[in-house]
């Protein structure tokens, strides 16, 4: 096995050519090789959900994905969520409604919620609970996270009708 791998992928819409140690996970490559430290780690074992990113639109735990598997794929992280200087409605709702306390689980939950809202425009509270059940948050008690995702769904709906 070569010590370093070279491959190309899309990160937050930009084409990236990378050379990295072959054993690295996508999480490590994002944080260490690309400097995208917005994606967090809480266990490196797929237990906490802090490292969730979107790969081809699907939420994935980046600590369980080898970067080597990502050739040609589209990766989205929290850094790519805002529209320029303007926050994505999910980000705005999280900030306004107390869904981010310490903020450490927040990037993973935002990306998981984005995948949900991309598929379902007005998910029920139960669907939201299911969607983020793999993301642990120790601060909020989840209530304000549920409310922020519901509020973001409303804001997105409003955008579509504008």
């Amino acid at each position, binding site marked *: 096995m070569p010590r370093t791998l070279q491959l190309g992928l899309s990160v937050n819409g930009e084409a990236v050519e990378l050379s990295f140690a072959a054993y690295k996970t996508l999480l490590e490559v994002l944080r260490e090789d690309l400097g995208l430290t917005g994606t967090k780690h809480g266990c490196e074992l797929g237990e906490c959900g802090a490292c969730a990113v979107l790969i081809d639109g699907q939420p994935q735990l980046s600590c369980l994905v080898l970067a080597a598997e990502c050739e040609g794929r589209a990766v989205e992280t929290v850094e790519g969520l805002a529209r320029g200087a303007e926050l994505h409605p999910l980000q705005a709702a999280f900030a306004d409604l107390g869904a981010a*306390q*310490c*903020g*450490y689980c927040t990037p993973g939950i935002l990306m998981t919620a984005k995948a949900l809202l991309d598929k379902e425009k007005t998910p029920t509270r139960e669907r939201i609970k299911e969607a983020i059940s793999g993301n642990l948050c*120790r*601060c909020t*008690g989840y209530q304000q996270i549920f409310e922020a995702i519901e509020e973001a769904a409303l804001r997105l709906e409003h955008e579509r009708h504008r």
Partner: protein
Amino acid sequence: MNVIGKPRRRVDGRAKVTGQTRFADDIVLPRMLHMKLLRSPHAHALIREINVEKAKQCPGVHLVLTGKDFPVTFGILPVTQDEYPLAPEHVRYVGDPVAAVVAKDEKTATEALDLIEVQYKILDTISSPEEALAKPEPRIHAYSERGNIHRLQAFEFGDVDAALAKSDHVFEDLFFYEGNTHLPIEQHAAVAALDGEGKLTLWSSTQVPHYVHRCLARVLRVPASQIRVIACPNGGGFGGKCDVCNHEMVVAKAAMLLGRPVKICLNREEVFYMHRGRHPVLMKMRTGVTRDGKLTGMHVQTLVDGGGYGSYGVASTFYTGALQTVTYELPRYKFDAARVFTNKPPCGPKRGHGTPQPRFGQEVQLDKIAERLGMDPAELRLGIVAKPDSLTANWLKIGSIGLAECIRQVVARSDWNSKFKKLPYGRGVGLACGSYLCGAGLPIYWNRMPQCGVQLLLDRSGQVTVFCGATEIGQGSDDVLVAIVAEVLGIDPIEVRCITGDTGITPVDLGSYSSRVTVMMGNAAIQASQKLKDLIAIAAAEQLEVAPDRLTFANGKVFFDNKSLSFMEAVGFAEEKFGTLGAVGSYKPPRSPGRYKGAGVGPSPAYSYTACVVETDVDPKTGWITVPKIWIAHDIGRTINPVLARGQVEGSVYMGLSEALMEEQVFRRLPPKLSSALVHKIPSLLEYKSLTSLDMPEVDTVLIEDPDPNCPFGAKEAGQGPLLPVMPAVANAIYDAIGVRIDELPITPDKVLKALQLKAQGKPARVGPEHFPAVPYPEPLIVPPPWEGGDGKEIKKNDAAAVV
């Protein structure tokens, strides 16, 4: 008020949702190296020899450190300086660090750990408090009070035995609260580097940069003035980053020796070993009551499992008794406590620090008392709520109390009266209350200096910069600081830049623990802001030709009637008149009336109060407990930002419910043939169970505002108190649902089934501790309560009868 009490996006909200908040492990510096720690695989052993030569030879390894490199001990409390950064000869729990490797990357460092050869002489493991009491040898620490008993405490505030003898009923119950851990999602990380002047900077995920600063100076033998500790925003703390950590000392030493930045990030397993979490506590409570439900006296005995080191343990042990007097009127009180050393990760402060355990016991016992007396549990409590502006039996000064209103709110909102004892079998409601500190009255190390300082700078551009050593751990302390400055100066919070948690540039604040930050930092911030407001008013008054005291500061203006200046213009005139504008404020809690030895733990500028109702649905076939809804009312004094306050309360409900139903830090022995080790049963996030989004019930939150005169705008704490009533309310609701008492936490389905089985067999339907071991508690310190002629000092035993 224009800012206080209004819902706002927190000042650091944008950074947190864009991934820009820089946590300790997000810091990357040029030429940075990585460190890993080698930890003891044995629970109790002596180190015979460490051979690090092979590790040193490993390509990519820059440095290997062992206990020999660290001759000086440290510890958070002055009385327990019992830890070495790396253990030189004696390891006391699985995970005790013994060596460190610094290498070009984490992988190389981790691989080199395997090349270090350590020869251990294995000692018998002390695994439980019972064992610690029975076996003085092998002794875990030479400095312990006797054998493996770390600390003994005993106090008597009035003759409790006499009070119980005269009571209509005496209730005696045993309770057990299993230990659990903080589980912040961020693992501890630290980066150390020498700056351009050769001085040390440490960035760390710590709640207590000031104490880390002091300990680094001691351990590294470097003047504190040459060290700067920067507390990064914590990715959750809950008390888990309140202690000074081995890795902080070792990474700092490595950076100093190598002249290069060095980083360490603990993995999840190591965070479980670091621990400092909730102490397991066995409790015995004897309580006397009159037939109309008044308390006559209480005797609490606790046996506290401390783990391998002191940590905050002496304080934690005091807290298993000190705040039992603050919630309800209690004429006499006796408290005996013992903390023992065991070969497990050290216990310390977790949210509620020592108080949740006896609170669980007392609130479940009150439920039993109400049932025996035929009283409604809410009515019983309403009849005994402590009085505002009063002293307690142990000489704590209580200010405002909103507890009665909290109880009335949760009773009304939960429809308690139509549910309690009236729901079908399997469903039930339970009620409990609690109270908590708004900051510890005394600092951890003895001094007469302020516990919090705030500095404020203003300039002609209208910039307001506030500096404070307080640490943002997610609770919103930066937002509180900005809100208070903005309120006093009449400006928008967006105008205030805040710089916090940096011992190099911010005034000392003792740290984010004991729910102290809002009260202490808030008072200091008001003082600093008011000083500058007064100067600006004088200068603006000259320009507007009005008296300074007639001016109003609001909405970015300084005005009277139709005469007005913008805030920026007013600051410019003040700078012209007084020179560069700056001010400081500081805060020290009022002196507590208690004068006896041990009176230092328990006093606070104010106490918060909470009441909670939990509804449960228990399946008698499986023992499975579902919680459909929780109602909570918290006496917060005054709400600064309701979005954040609600988040603190609901986060407390979440953590309390998680502790009630599943969280436990438990250990198992390996087969004796294999090892004497006591290993963590579940040092992983998957196996250490905590509530997920699917498990979390709906929470109805009410904030009761009963402003306390000692607090900034009357604002009390919200981060810890609301956790306290949740666990006992769950236990009481389970009793209402299926008629069984589970007198220990967590309450798991197997315990429910066992209790139902006992009930079916006609035995007492209770699961909980059956036996309280003989503990050699000392003769108590006798302190007459305020209403029995005392003056807050201890008296000799013979004098007690005379005073009473």
